[in-house]
């Protein structure tokens, strides 16, 4: 509520001083040739779909992409043309997700989708994107279809890679022998990602097990007891933040902090989490971060913050999905700027150009970004580990590449693209 009141005051201030606010933003932040002229001419149509309804909001990815495109437009656009970024909300409803994609791709004839973030949209629309030969440069993926489709590629890692990263830390640093992965009982989310953790553990000659929570079940105690009964010595929390907090509260109630090693995938890497967890977990909760730490000093991370401050709403979260949205929009813009200006409205040409991306780099990710003509895309599979410490996060392991059977085909692709 306080944030909304603050943003209301900020909005009033913005209305009162529009010229000053934008002028200040434009003067400091550039996303292009910095010739000082705003883009003109026929807009380049780009779409984006996010999910925003109870119980989750993934809109920070499209918010960041929108902010970046606004910055691009103010900095001369793409070959002088502005980006018209159209965003739809699937509200976690498969029917709405299908309608949103149809509206953007068939009615508006967008040349690509950028910054998509949803649990639902990718599962529904992956075949449609392939059929329409349009690429989705997503940013907040959480389901298997997002990483195992020909026409979707994401800058974030999703629960599978992030969970394996957390499991690796538990094994290599905390010397865990049996990791119990706590996931959601949704086939393309929890079963998929915790199943991959089990395979990773097996590949190391160790034991992995899964406890899958029904998202509709309010009680998490039974799931915690199931993990305890499994005989694990490490617990990996691979849940949306709200549910993860509830699970850790149940563990706190049983005073299990010192009886297990505790790790988590990225959803707990959120600035509001240390306060919600409280002092009990200080120094004990280790979390995988898919992208660079939010306070990273790299040029792109600094630029992301500047773009958000200048072109996004104050209440728009500055989180991992926001970083991902910024990065997808940046890579998309970079690709279009390298294209023949005459082909910018040709969807097939844009799709081909995106699929040719190989070796883009940013300090926001540990490894190179690439697409390729493949049915599996997961360019981001290296990350960072942080620990909750003194009400904030402290890096305990910098960029490290994840291991396990799931990544073998990706390694082959990267070798063919001469990226390793």
């Amino acid at each position, binding site marked *: 509520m*306080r944030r909304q009141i603050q943003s209301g005051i900020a909005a009033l201030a913005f209305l009162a001083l529009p010229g000053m606010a934008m002028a200040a933003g434009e003067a400091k932040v550039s996303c292009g040739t910095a010739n000082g002229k705003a883009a003109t001419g026929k807009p380049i149509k780009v779409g984006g779909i996010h999910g925003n309804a109870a*119980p989750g909001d993934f809109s920070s990815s499209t918010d960041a992409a929108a902010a970046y495109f606004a910055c691009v437009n103010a900095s001369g656009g793409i070959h002088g043309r502005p980006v018209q970024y159209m965003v739809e909300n699937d509200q976690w409803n498969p029917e709405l997700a299908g309608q949103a994609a149809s509206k953007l791709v068939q009615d508006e004839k967008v040349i690509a989708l950028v910054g998509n973030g949803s649990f639902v949209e990718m599962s529904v629309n992956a075949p449609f994107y392939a059929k329409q030969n349009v690429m989705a440069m997503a940013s907040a993926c959480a389901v298997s279809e997002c990483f195992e489709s020909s026409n979707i590629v994401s800058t974030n890692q999703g629960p599978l890679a992030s969970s394996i990263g957390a499991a690796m830390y538990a094994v290599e640093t905390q010397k865990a022998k049996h990791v119990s992965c706590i996931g959601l*009982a949704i086939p393309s989310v929890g079963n998929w990602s915790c199943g991959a953790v089990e395979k990773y553990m097996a590949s190391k000659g160790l034991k992995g097990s899964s406890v899958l929570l029904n998202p*509709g079940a309010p009680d998490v105690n*039974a799931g915690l007891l199931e993990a305890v*009964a499994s005989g694990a010595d490490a617990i990996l929390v691979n849940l949306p933040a709200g549910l993860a907090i*509830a699970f850790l509260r149940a563990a706190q*109630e049983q005073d299990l902090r010192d009886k297990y090693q505790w790790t988590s995938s990225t959803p707990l890497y*959120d600035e509001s989490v240390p306060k919600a967890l409280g002092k009990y977990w200080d120094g004990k909760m280790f979390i995988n971060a898919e992208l660079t730490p939010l306070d990273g000093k790299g040029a792109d991370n600094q630029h992301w913050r500047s773009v958000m401050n200048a072109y996004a709403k104050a209440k728009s979260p500055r989180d991992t999905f926001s970083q991902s949205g910024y990065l997808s929009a940046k890579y998309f813009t970079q690709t279009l700027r390298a294209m023949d200006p005459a082909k910018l409205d040709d969807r097939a040409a844009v799709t081909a150009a995106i699929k040719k991306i190989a070796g883009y780099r940013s300090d926001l990710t540990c490894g190179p970004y690439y697409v390729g003509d493949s049915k599996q895309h997961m360019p981001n599979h290296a990350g960072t580990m942080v620990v909750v410490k003194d009400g904030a996060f402290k890096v305990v392991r910098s960029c490290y590449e994840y291991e396990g059977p799931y990544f073998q085909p990706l390694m082959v692709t990267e070798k063919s693209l001469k990226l390793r």
Partner: protein
Amino acid sequence: MKSKQATFILAMGLACTLVAWGKPLAVIGLFVVSGMAVGSLYALGGVGLVVLYRTTGVLNFASGAMGAAGVMLAWQLGQWGWYEPMTWVAGLALATGLSLFYGRLIAPHLAARDTVVKAVATLGFALIVLGATSFVWDDDVRSFTLPSDQMAIRLLGLRVTVTRLIVFLTTVALVIGIWVYLEHTRMGLQMRALANDRHISSLIGVRILKVETIAWGMAGFIAGFTGLMFGDLVRLEPNIITFVVIPSIAAAICGRLDSLGMVLIGGLFIGVLESLLTLSPWLKSVRTVAPFVVAIAMLVLLQSGNRLLFGRDE
């Protein structure tokens, strides 16, 4: 009816035994205590529903939403640095206020309508309250704690916090207290008369608005208390707390929307069965249906009787 209640308890006991069969007693003990802790929350919500239904004939689907709004307000005031007990009072006051608002301004206009219509109207109110709550407190990571979370006892190997004990003991106390109130006080007599026949009650001088206001106030207070406990013990998420009303209704059905003792027993069985289902590799993915299975079992048992669940006035 007592034989049916005994049959229900035996059937539930048998179901729990079958699900837990072959597991070590220590493990079963953990899951039973954990299930009772959640079940007492369901029973608490169910008691609030039955109190209102017995006095006004309204099955209040909005009780979860009222509790959710209350606990979110309490959390918000806590964030603003309010003295903790004041935040609880404010949360309880909001839930009670919402209940009184509906009971005084909306419910009287529906007094002559069918019981089902009255119930569905509260569902609409629940969605309005949930929408407003979600609008004010958008999706974010939050947690709500009470000082009693820090104190605990060991029961069958499980650490049970004082907060959970408070929930259980409060539920038992409410069952006894409300039974005494309804059966042995003048106001309780008027409430029962009103529920039995609103028209005749008004003719013999029962002050309908006063009696109904007290009933809605009591139900709102219980909803607020349930919301505070649920926000602390389960999750501080408005939509989750709002729909806790569903297992609570299942618990209320176990008591035929009438018997508070059976609501308590039904709620506890729902919680325990839901918890024990986790032990079954085949059934753990469907454990969320436990409330409905228990409610259906009770409804089937009641089929041979002539008492209609939604037909008090017929």
